[in-house]
């Protein structure tokens, strides 16, 4: 049978035209991107929280509703949540091997991160606009 002996792909893979989806490095790359962004954002977050220590309710609301803290929090939360979703995904893939448990754990991870992230974003927007 005439075959391309230089290729390591199986004949089935060749006929299906299913090559690399070019997404293999996406996880690792997004981990780096979010990590880099989170360095200044974490410092900003700690700064914001420290400036609120001991303040009363009105002062906290006013501070979190100001544009700069609100924007920094709106950058920090989704970046952090996306980062932790990727991280937990790796941990699940490393330690959970039973196929259905792994699958449900990965879904739960996505849902948890989406819920926590959106709840925080909603609260920050509400503090700014309501």
């Amino acid at each position, binding site marked *: 049978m005439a075959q391309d002996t230089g290729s390591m792909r199986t004949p089935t893979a060749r006929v299906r035209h299913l090559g690399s989806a070019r997404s293999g490095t996406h996880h690792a790359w997004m981990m780096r991107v979010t990590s880099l962004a989170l360095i200044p954002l974490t410092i900003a977050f700690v700064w914001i929280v*420290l400036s609120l220590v001991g303040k009363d309710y009105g002062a906290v609301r006013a501070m*979190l509703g100001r544009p700069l803290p609100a924007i920094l929090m709106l950058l920090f939360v989704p970046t952090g949540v996306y980062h*932790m979703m990727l991280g*937990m995904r790796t941990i699940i893939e490393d330690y959970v091997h039973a196929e259905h448990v792994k699958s449900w754990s990965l879904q739960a991870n996505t849902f948890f991160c989406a819920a926590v992230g959106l*709840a*925080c974003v909603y*609260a*920050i927007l509400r503090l700014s606009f309501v």
Partner: protein
Amino acid sequence: MAKTDSSPIAHEQRRPLSPHLQVYRFALTMAMSIMHRITGVGLYAGTLLLAWWLIAAATDASSFATANWFMGSILGRLILFGFTWALFHHMLGGVRHFIWDMGYGMEHPEREYLAQGTLIGGAVLTALVWIVAYSVR
């Protein structure tokens, strides 16, 4: 060589096994790798506290007072202290990974210094933040 196991497969026919945790000598870099994961999981759980605090602030004064009461309690402060430390330790661990990504710090003395630096840096930054927090309170 004394035969110390009960495998029915002749020694020379066995597949090679990759070494696992229990056969390695303890190394600081190894502990730091595990700590990076554990602090990551801690921060993951800690986002619930952040969400609670933000939602309470967005709801009303009594919800905020409840959240504040918990975070000001002994248990709450312990959790927040742990969260602060996990945050800085994990962040510095990330910086260490960036240094490795750029191709530096993987050889023997450097990687030990980086591990020690992460440990000390995380502790110092945590202490600093809490000193500031208590002095502005």
